[in-house]
């Protein structure tokens, strides 16, 4: 089960849960699983087949460039963070 950290501003939609464990081999499956458990999260993490603009995902400490298609391992740690640019 992947360990998904809920951003502080979204915890009102997860009954205060700071993290949840869900099954999923891709980020898409993981997001679908937590949306199913917490329906009020819908629209806060993804817009259709994409993460919402400005949002990025870190999987096992790595900011993925694959969006919802990123692979998630059974023991992965998932964070949702602001997208990073650079100069």
């Amino acid at each position: 089960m992947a360990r998904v950290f809920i951003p502080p501003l979204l915890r009102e939609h997860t009954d205060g849960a700071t993290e949840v464990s869900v099954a999923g081999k891709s980020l898409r499956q993981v997001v679908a699983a937590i949306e199913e458990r917490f329906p009020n999260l819908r629209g806060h993490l993804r817009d259709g087949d994409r993460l919402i603009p400005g949002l990025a995902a870190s999987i096992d400490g790595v900011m993925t460039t694959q969006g919802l298609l990123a692979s998630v391992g059974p023991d992965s740690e998932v964070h949702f963070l602001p997208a990073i640019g650079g100069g």
Partner: protein
Amino acid sequence: MAVSPESKATSQSNGAAPFKVIGTRPIRHDGADKVTGRALYTNDVHLPSMVHGQILRSPIAHGRIKSIDTSAAENLPGVYAVVTSADFPDPENKTAQLGEGAVNLAHLSANVMARDKVLYKGHAVAAVAASSLDIAEEALRLIKVDYEPLPSVTWVLDAMADGAPLLHDDLFTDREGKKSEKPTNICQYIRFEQGDVEKGFAEADVVIEREFKTATVHQGYIEPHVSIALWNTDGHLKVWTATQGSFTCRQQTAELLQIPISSVTVVPCEIGGGFGGKISVYLEPVAALLSRKCGRPVKIVMTRADCFEGTGPTPGTFIRVKLGAKRDGKMTAAQAWMAYEAGAYPTGIIGPGCMCVFSCYDLPNALVEGFDVVENKPKSAAYRAPGATQAAFACESVVYEMAETLGIDPIEFRLINAAREGTRRVDGPVYPRVGLIETLEAARDSQHWGSKLEGPNRGRGVASGFWFNIGLKSSVTANVNPDGTVTLLEGSTDIGGTRTSIAMQLAETLGITAEAVLPQVVDTDSVGYTDVTGGSRVTFATGLAAYRVGLDLRQQMCDRAARLWDCDVDQVEYSDGAFVHGEQRISFKDLAGKLSELGDPVVGRATVSPEGSTNSFGTHIVDVEVDPETGKVTILRYTVVQDAGRAIHPSYFEGQMQGGAVQGIGWTLNEEYVFDKENRMSNASYLDYRMPTALDLPMIETIIVEVPNPDHPYGVRGVGEVPIVPPPGAIAAAIYHAVGVRADTLPISPPRLWAAIEAHRRETNGAS
């Protein structure tokens, strides 16, 4: 430890380096062109029948455009075309993914050419193409714009206040997808939590809380923005431009003009600096529309004032930092409240600011809140580690004060609390192997830190900094030539010597010399998709592509050697730049000479999208002398210590460290946008916007630390951005050490510091 006397550079490596090319200092491939003036920058490009474009900019900070009358300009002899926002397609309120980030196309379009409102002085409102610059300028004077002036605001806290002038009627605060009920200037709120911050502060023996302000500053690239567009009669648009990312430039231009991306070719010319400021488009769509109207190529060259007033500087900020620590030096809690200026449209630089503010430390309890705020300044843009320098100034200043309060050496205090492998950042992710501790140890053991600093009004400071460094996408193509050289085609525009650092990684992989690789930066039709030169990613990611294309070429060359020797390919080995089968051996160069007889040409390609950050840290030491009668600060000595992972070309790495430190020194001591009472920038020239020059600085000393990145075959980490992060914190600490004044506002310019010294003197005299 090797010492290069010319730059007082030293290096130390934590990993074996069995390389022949990597770590050497070959002459850059573009060196002859650069030093002889033959390198082609955009302004060097002259096309047949080309005409000159100029842009009319808003004279006021905020106003509604009631009407624009261009008839007189259009009737002026020599004028070929005039465009306003009416010539742009209706902007789509959608977000375009640009690889490195996302941009709202309606905001981007309105920033390129104002629609119903101007939001800052310098906002483009119309453009002209004419046979000469003089005629174009005359035509601009004939354009009549009727403005309804509106109240304006240019300080982040004022823009956040109730009753502040609103820039956008349709902007609502975004809290992770939840929008505010009323329009506001606060476009984003971010919050990170770790542990229990209240409990952490309760456990602390010492708690320090301070507030900081930083000014709006510009990247200050030498080459102004220049673009040429030719909209051909076949509908194809070709753009020559100074850009950090030819592919994202192509995408932005196509999206704003609503034309197929395949109908746009972007030719990246040589670029005279960018530092994040040449990622967003400003001129390209305008030149394109002018070209379409007049049927000629159109060149637009910004003035220096245009660059200051019409492109993106970095945000001014207000930051409050609170730290708690035990008497043994272990920090128990940290809290930050951060408000960043976005300029006229949302930018999101607050995100990395919040992620970086405590990124150097292993903290059990922390809370970070951040706000992205629009106001009447140019739309902010990335600038070398965007958001991190402001955050580090605040955090490192309090860290220095905490160490002093506890009576602990500031480097030892940092070592006690330093982030390391396994540390969970406040925003969540856990660090893999990182090199902060090694940079701190190298700083502690340096000759600089161990030297005595004597004399009145002199002080020494130290600070650390972090930047993620990113991967994104890169593509390369490589052709083996009959003379044994390899032509390497890449899409990464070369700002910091990356042609050579990438070529060296291919040379290392092939066992040939760096000079035998011939790197070429090519246009968007000539190589695979490549993301921007930014985020300290090119030597890391495009270098990884070069490594992989090297493996591809090696395999193909093994196949040709097998044909030559009539053996199976798996019986051919590649060793030390040569192909070997039993007693038979042929060098790469000799085999290349036989390729025409051995089958198909050898052409390799590689595409990569490495994920993750390369996590680079640096620690800076500075000695200053303050003139208490004027407030002028002189940098006496400056040392940069930074983890490169692996320094591919040490000279270029040293150059990045030195350049970044100098820009950070500029932020700290002099640079700022100054606004008049009408909120118009009043110092938009290098005479009045004071950047450091060689006369202001000592030679910046460098110490290279190498803690190899486990996620790169040669251990490369990004290096370009970290060195701008520590200077403000280090210099502020040195100033305090020198004259007892804690500087909380950037820049620490002579009048500001003199006033603080005088106030401190009065306070001290009053107390005694």
